[in-house]
């Protein structure tokens, strides 16, 4: 299918990927489980579940609620902690020839710095995704991505530590008044690329118990329901910062959806919730996207990035 003249590769900062479709953080665990459904080295990269410094049990169940064309989750960043993660998960991915983007999440600015330091010398990592936008951590008051000062501080800290060793992708929350402004701040602080968007804060009330359904009360809304918000965020940020690469995500389920995000300005696309309904979603989206790009006459992914921003054709009649 792939013709020799068609270039399906993409870049995020200094990181190169043979294809532009990725898993989404938290929607592929550490990659192993999905490898039953497709070879991990065939997709752009595996973005791992946000890892924290220490082991974390996360939120109580119920942790999910299905909503119209979407779902809420309140996992609360359950995970093994950075040491166990680096000892077990990364080596397995590297052995299996997967490109790896490690997502990190901290409870404090310093923690992000410490996490970044641990990653510096680890072989086989393509980039770091800095999750400053998880709405599930206990201190909601301190969602880094919603506060320009803390967002900047986190990126500063990671930037200083990594010093150019690995590209830094900063993942933003859509739950802000002006996402382009936050984007500009984190790019000025040293982000090489942006990941857009994390989940929207939502809630479902169980009408039987008449209490919030989720153990964590609120949860993150994902899935096709949020795609129009994601496309808008990507479009706005690409318009404001046309040279900054964007990893787009939020409700992508088909090649058409991935194509839409690339037209809006994404250099790569992550598939999250769609994998829950269809464990082969990532590879299917990637194959459909390739076919679609070629059928539209593009010679590369690059040509299509932000194509929807080109000037509109003039009036055809006078």
């Amino acid at each position: 299918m792939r013709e020799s003249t068609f270039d399906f590769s993409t870049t995020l900062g200094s990181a190169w990927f043979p294809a532009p479709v990725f898993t989404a953080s938290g929607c592929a665990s550490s990659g192993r489980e999905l490898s039953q459904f497709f070879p991990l080295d065939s997709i752009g990269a595996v973005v791992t579940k946000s890892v924290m410094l220490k082991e974390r049990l996360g939120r109580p169940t119920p942790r999910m609620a299905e909503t119209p064309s979407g779902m809420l989750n309140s996992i609360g960043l359950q995970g093994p902690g950075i040491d166990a993660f680096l000892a077990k998960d990364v080596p397995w991915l590297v052995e299996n020839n997967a490109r790896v983007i490690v997502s990190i999440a901290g409870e404090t600015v310093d923690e992000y710095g410490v996490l970044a330091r641990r990653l510096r010398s680890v072989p086989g990592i393509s980039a770091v995704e800095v999750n400053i936008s998880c709405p599930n951590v206990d201190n909601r008051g301190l969602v880094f991505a919603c506060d320009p000062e803390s967002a900047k501080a986190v990126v500063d800290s990671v930037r200083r530590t990594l010093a150019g060793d690995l590209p830094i992708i900063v993942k933003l929350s859509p739950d802000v008044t002006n996402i382009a402004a936050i984007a500009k701040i984190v790019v000025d602080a040293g982000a090489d690329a942006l990941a857009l968007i994390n989940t929207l804060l939502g809630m479902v009330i169980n009408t039987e118990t008449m209490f919030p359904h989720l153990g964590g009360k609120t949860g993150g809304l994902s899935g096709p329901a949020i795609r129009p918000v994601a496309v808008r965020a990507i479009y706005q940020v690409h318009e404001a910062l046309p040279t900054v690469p964007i990893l787009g995500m939020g409700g992508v389920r088909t090649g058409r959806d991935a194509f839409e995000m690339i037209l809006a300005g994404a250099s790569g696309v992550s598939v999250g919730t769609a994998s829950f309904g269809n464990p082969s979603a990532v590879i299917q989206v990637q194959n459909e996207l390739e076919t679609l790009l070629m059928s539209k006459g593009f010679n590369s992914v690059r040509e299509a990035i932000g194509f929807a921003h080109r000037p509109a054709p003039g009036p055809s009649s006078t």
Partner: protein
Amino acid sequence: MGQYHQLLINVGEVVRHCKPGNFVAISVGGENSSLILRRAFAISRVSDRGEYGGTMELIVAPHGSGSRWLCAQEVGNSLDIIAPLGTPFGIPTAPVQALLVGGGYGSAPLFGLAEVLKSRGCRVDMILGASTVAKIYAPIEGKRSVNSLKIFTEDGSTGQMGKVTDLIPGLIADGQVDVIYSCGPMGMLSAISRITQGTDVVHQCAVEEAMACGVGICMTCVLPVRKEDGTISMLRSCIDGPVMDGALVAWELVGKNGMTP
């Protein structure tokens, strides 16, 4: 079938890999569905003698949108299904005295399990329970594969009035039980774990937590399970379960805030 629908699904070769305790995940609502997540159902029985090769039986309670859609499917419709999933019941290598306890549609996987246990020379007693007669699932032919079958309903509409757990302490005290296999509401499973605590009886329970993916990638379906050192792990009930060791599940922490490893 009381309140339940029996679904027979043609799955071909797949039946060879299905063991009692495994489950399946089915897409619901059709092509333009707003229901984006699969629904999990315990495999009740499999047969490879069907007209078109292997068939699988599910017992579905029409409850919400997904299960109602499934129950409304007509003969001949095709389904999008992933099977088999999950860790099945452990089968003893030597003959044991097995007690199978089912609540509501939770009894569905127990009849297939009973057949396997019988074929291994085990003695198989079964206790089924539900709030009322319509919620008891106990197919006639199923009775053949057990040595005894007792039924409890909370309203006394069939069998004895009471709960499945009423008899268990006595059976254990009489030395009639080596292993309990259970499937049903979480309350029932935790009650059985309390009963077996401090005894030698092994408790293999099939849990039911809400699952978004069914294949281990989302972490929504976790249960607090005690490790050997006494600390807690959150294990995925879709791949580390649904069958778990009832003695290790920290039932008192399920759904509780502020857990630490």
